[in-house]
């Protein structure tokens, strides 16, 4: 029934190295991401998964290596440029705006698409109001998609963990990203919530054609939904390939079983 249209490579990394004050977080990492695919980065704790995500996203700047994004090579860009170029993300420890409602949180995801300035905002008139309403509609579609209608106006601080994760995904989706980075989207969830999240991730990938790069600590879930998987351990790439290939890889098994290095 499904026919996936995985496209060309749109993002690739070559020899990425990153260190913090002498501590190596990533060592000469290289892999690529194809359009419309679900690419997972897995690895045990401290493997450098989040650092890798932060490099993609422009939060960290690698000391070495090259990132080629849509044919253009760059050493690193700042978070703003990254957002501008269509990369959105969620965070491992939920980074929602606690004082705002679900609706407002997701609305913030659309800020780069808003044209009105603060003077028009202050008057709340004409184009500003029309724009607000147009974006509200888009946001409502996301709310509908994620099935969180009933908490639309609830301050996010009051929500259960699993719902917060969903709202955060909503905020990222609001930017209509071409690449979506998910940092442990299923951490801390119960089985049912994990299933829901898997469904949403697959739907996003399928219906919106969004390329997804996701990090997971737990191998199980990811293997079912990813097209290709990169495995990191101690900041180094130890495997890369389809879930089946990775599962059979001896280094990966060792890393997860905790064989001494």
């Amino acid at each position, binding site marked *: 029934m499904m026919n996936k249209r995985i496209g060309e490579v749109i993002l690739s990394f070559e020899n990425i190295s990153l260190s913090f004050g002498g501590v190596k977080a990533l060592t000469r990492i290289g892999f690529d991401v194809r359009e419309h695919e679900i690419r997972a980065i897995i690895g045990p704790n401290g493997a450098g998964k989040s650092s890798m995500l932060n490099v993609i*996203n422009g*939060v960290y700047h690698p000391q070495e290596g090259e990132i080629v994004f849509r044919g253009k090579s760059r050493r690193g860009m700042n*978070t*703003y440029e*990254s*957002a*501008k170029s269509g990369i*959105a*993300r969620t*965070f491992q420890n939920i*980074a*929602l*705006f*606690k*004082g*705002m409602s679900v609706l*407002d949180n997701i*609305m*913030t*995801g659309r*800020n*780069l698409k*808003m044209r*009105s300035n*603060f003077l028009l*905002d*202050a*008057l*709340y008139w004409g184009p*500003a*109001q029309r724009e*607000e*309403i147009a974006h*509200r*509609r888009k946001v409502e579609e996301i709310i509908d998609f994620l099935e969180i209608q009933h908490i639309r106006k609830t301050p996010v601080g009051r929500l259960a963990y699993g719902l917060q994760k969903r709202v955060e995904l909503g*905020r*990222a989706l609001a*930017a209509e990203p071409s690449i979506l980075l998910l940092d442990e989207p299923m951490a801390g969830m119960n089985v049912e919530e994990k299933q829901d999240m898997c469904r949403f991730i697959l739907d996003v990938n399928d219906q919106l054609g969004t390329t997804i790069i996701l990090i997971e600590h737990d191998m199980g879930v990811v293997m079912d939904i990813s097209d290709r998987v990169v495995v990191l351990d101690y900041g180094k790439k130890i495997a890369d390939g389809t879930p089946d290939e990775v599962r059979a890889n001896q280094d990966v098994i060792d890393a997860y079983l905790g064989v001494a290095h």
Partner: protein
Amino acid sequence: MFYREAGQFKATYAEDNRIFPIRQDRIVFAFIIIFAFLGVPLLASIGLVSNYTFTAILTPFLIFSLAALGLNILTGYAGQLSLGTAAFMAVGAFASYNFMLRIEGMPILVAFMLGGLCAAGVGIVFGLPSLRIRGFYLAAATLATQFFIVWCLTKIGWFTNYSSSGVISAQKIAILGYTFESSMSKYLFVLSVVSVMALLAKNMVRSNIGRSWMAIRDMDMAAEVIGFRPMRTKLMAFAVSSFYCGVSGALFAYAYLGTVEPEGFNLDLSFRILFMVIIGGLGSILGSFLGSAFIVLLPIVLSITIQFLEHSIGLNLPSGIGSSIELMAFGSLIIFFLIVEPHGLARLWQIGKEKLRLWPFPH
């Protein structure tokens, strides 16, 4: 209990985005506005509202509300603590004074606007550190604003038009030939300005600019990642906040005091406005008004109480005790609110309203 909302459904986003989505709120608010604009003057004309009420309560209440609104935008919405509010008010007051003084035929409202813009400019300059520092580091840094600006205004004679005492006499407020002289007319003037500016502030905080402030406040890293630019957002908050404080300072000088010296805008005033924001409610437009009312009324209530105690039971309190008690009361209230209800009176009001909406259910 009195909120009968069944049947108030929203068929458009415009309806859903209203400032007061509940009909009952709209009615009450309309009533308050009408009362403030028509009812109060009417009561005054039959002698039920005294001059004292205008000059000592209503007008300062409104002016401080505006300043608190300004600080609330910065501190409550954008999360940048400032202890230099009075300095921005001073800039607004003295800039307006000089625009009036030095430009022939300058309309007073335009002078206020320009005064506010000057304050906004100063706010941007002193807001620059906020890009690198946060929390009480920033608060400490804003003290620089406070001391430096007051010093400038005191020492550089040009600002006070070389007045020997350093005190300026504000020009009269006149619009289209009408001079606002009576305490009631000044009240109405202030009320108009404050109403319009409060509306604009409300509009800002419920649209993209306001969301950008709150995003930076709640989780700056995430805000950056989704595309808000921290520098722009913070400086915008400083600018808008200072603008409000500046206009409020101009009103303070023109509609309340009449004459001003730079020392009038001291650290104590900054603190007082911070207290209004904390007690009223961080991140709430309504809270700015509630906090201002509270801080304006508290000393009056205290002094009446002390007087009453002295007269009725012959308690002989040392002179000056009133201001000491006032300080203690302010201090303990701040602590009390931070512990018990960090979101201030506005939140209390909100909780009460929620209860009424769900009545008779408890939650």
